């Protein structure tokens, strides 16, 4: 009997107050935190690329190709945290084979496929086709074969054909912007539409996810751009970096305002769930929400980037600060996803109690697994940069 009760007490020691039995263990763990995080990085990086292409911010040219390849590298991994979270990962394809229209997750499979196939791959293909044809002639062996396959054995690089590539690429980007909004708005929708959970259920959720996605994606490209020029021992294009920082600042303001609005709305409405959420925010989420997401991830970057809009220190200092700010934002947005996903499961839907969450190092849902899914996109990106180096491309003016 001692063993039996010991187990019961061990389980109940995680719990404060009254929780339903199915709320003791968190079913959505760090891998589900990574899913909106990585998807957001994709959408954000793509939006940065489209700023150059659609909104004609030519100054962002040095990061255009890099942003697209970053989006692709992360896109290829975006579903992996979800799939590795499944008890039966090899059945994952079934949502595509027998999708049900009432299943938000099944439709995500198609939104994802649309974005990958029709937007990202097509845009990159049109953008690189001429270069791949040229590189196929310049290289030998496997790389040559790879370029030939990737360019689909096309050979026409006449100005007319290139102009067509450019035009079609532009159209794809135009379609791509609403698609990027759809992709990440959809991730927010999946959480926002869970009406039983007052921490998630808000119509603002898709918009908040979208803007935080833009912020994190732009910060990621900024970080990679700074590190890449350092690794390649080149001088950085400060005008481009300042412009990225400017847009990062704008999107961060919108993101901050939206999240603030969401909270103010929640505080003013003070629904029956409010007491429970109030305790959650000042208890179990205090550190991750106020410090990691709020102070380090939002306020400090906002103040720094805001100051830079009217006072610019020397380039060297500015570059280092940009590096720190981008890292802080990336950490901050990660904790924003954490606070949403984990926070939403820490309180009981009876509003009478809380459970706790402890994450291990190893195991299918541990830190190691999560870091693997965060490192792999960088390896893919390194490969893509080797295969399709944006700096070796023949400059094409995207004016059409």
């Amino acid at each position, binding site marked *: 009997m001692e063993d039996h009760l010991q187990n019961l007490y061990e389980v109940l020691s995680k719990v404060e*107050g009254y929780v339903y039995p199915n709320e003791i263990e968190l079913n959505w763990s760090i891998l589900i935190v990574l899913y909106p995080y990585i998807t957001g990085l994709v959408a954000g990086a793509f939006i940065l690329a489209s700023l150059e292409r659609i909104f004609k911010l030519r100054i962002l040219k040095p990061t255009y190709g890099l942003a697209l390849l970053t989006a692709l590298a992360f896109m290829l991994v975006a579903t992996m945290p979800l799939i590795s979270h499944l008890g039966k990962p090899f059945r994952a394809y079934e949502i595509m084979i027998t999708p049900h229209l009432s299943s938000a997750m099944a439709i995500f499979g198609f939104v994802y496929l649309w974005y990958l196939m029709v937007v990202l791959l*097509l845009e990159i*293909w049109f953008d690189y086709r001429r270069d791949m044809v040229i590189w196929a002639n310049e290289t030998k062996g496997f790389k040559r074969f790879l370029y030939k396959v990737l360019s*689909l054995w096309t*050979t026409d690089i006449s100005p007319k*054909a290139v102009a067509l590539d450019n035009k079609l690429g532009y159209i794809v980007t135009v379609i791509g912007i609403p698609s990027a909004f759809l992709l990440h708005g959809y991730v927010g929708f999946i959480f926002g539409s869970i009406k039983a959970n007052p921490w998630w259920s808000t119509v603002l959720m898709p918009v908040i996810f979208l803007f935080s996605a833009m912020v994190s994606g732009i910060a990621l490209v900024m970080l990679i751009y700074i590190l890449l020029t350092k690794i390649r021992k080149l001088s950085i294009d400060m005008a481009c970096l300042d412009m990225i920082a400017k847009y990062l600042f704008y999107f961060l303001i919108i993101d901050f305002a939206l999240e603030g609005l969401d909270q103010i709305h929640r505080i003013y409405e003070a629904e029956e769930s409010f007491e429970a959420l109030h305790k959650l925010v000042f208890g179990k989420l205090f550190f991750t929400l106020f410090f990691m997401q709020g102070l380090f991830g939002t306020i400090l970057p906002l103040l720094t980037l805001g100051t830079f809009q009217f006072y610019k220190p020397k380039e060297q200092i500015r570059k280092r600060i940009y590096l720190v700010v981008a890292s802080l934002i990336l950490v901050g947005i990660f904790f924003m996803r954490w606070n949403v996903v984990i926070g939403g499961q820490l309180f009981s839907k009876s509003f009478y109690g809380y459970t706790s969450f402890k994450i291990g190092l190893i195991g299918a849902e541990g830190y190691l697994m999560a870091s693997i899914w965060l490192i792999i996109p960088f390896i893919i990106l390194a490969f893509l940069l080797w295969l399709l180096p944006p700096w070796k491309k023949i400059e094409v003016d995207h004016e059409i």
Partner: protein
Amino acid sequence: MPQQIKRLISVFAIFIALFLIMRQVLKPESFGELGHYRAKAIQENTMKELHYAGSDSCAKCHEDILKDKSLGFHKQLKCEVCHGPGLKHALFIDKVNTAQIPDSLVLYKPIQRKDCAICHQINAARIKIQFDTINTSMIHQINVLDHNLMDLDTKVEYKCIDCHNPHQP
């Protein structure tokens, strides 16, 4: 038609065709016949091995106990909840028609304190008890580690059933 468009259309056509073929190949057999699920899943479920006999089977031999039980707080509780699945036990009696049941088919007798604790150990997540009124829809809760634990003189642990008749507690 420009070369690159032709190639792209072919690639997309191949991809879509492959997807449709894969869909046909991978779609589970009998999916969609009755609804958005495998029709054979129903058949598969009916083919699962049965373990429980149901209280009616128990009544054939143990009518006196069921009568006792129907008067007490446990009247809603089915026999196999405490004694475990009894289909093999019941089938043996039906077929062999003898009271000599082999040991392997004798059902579990929950006579230890831990057995009662499964339902009756105090736990905040269980149905709350109203002050001084106990009705049959509530599970009476006690602290099994504390409640009449042992004989103070002999230090022998009491069993719950020493005081409570499990069929009519």
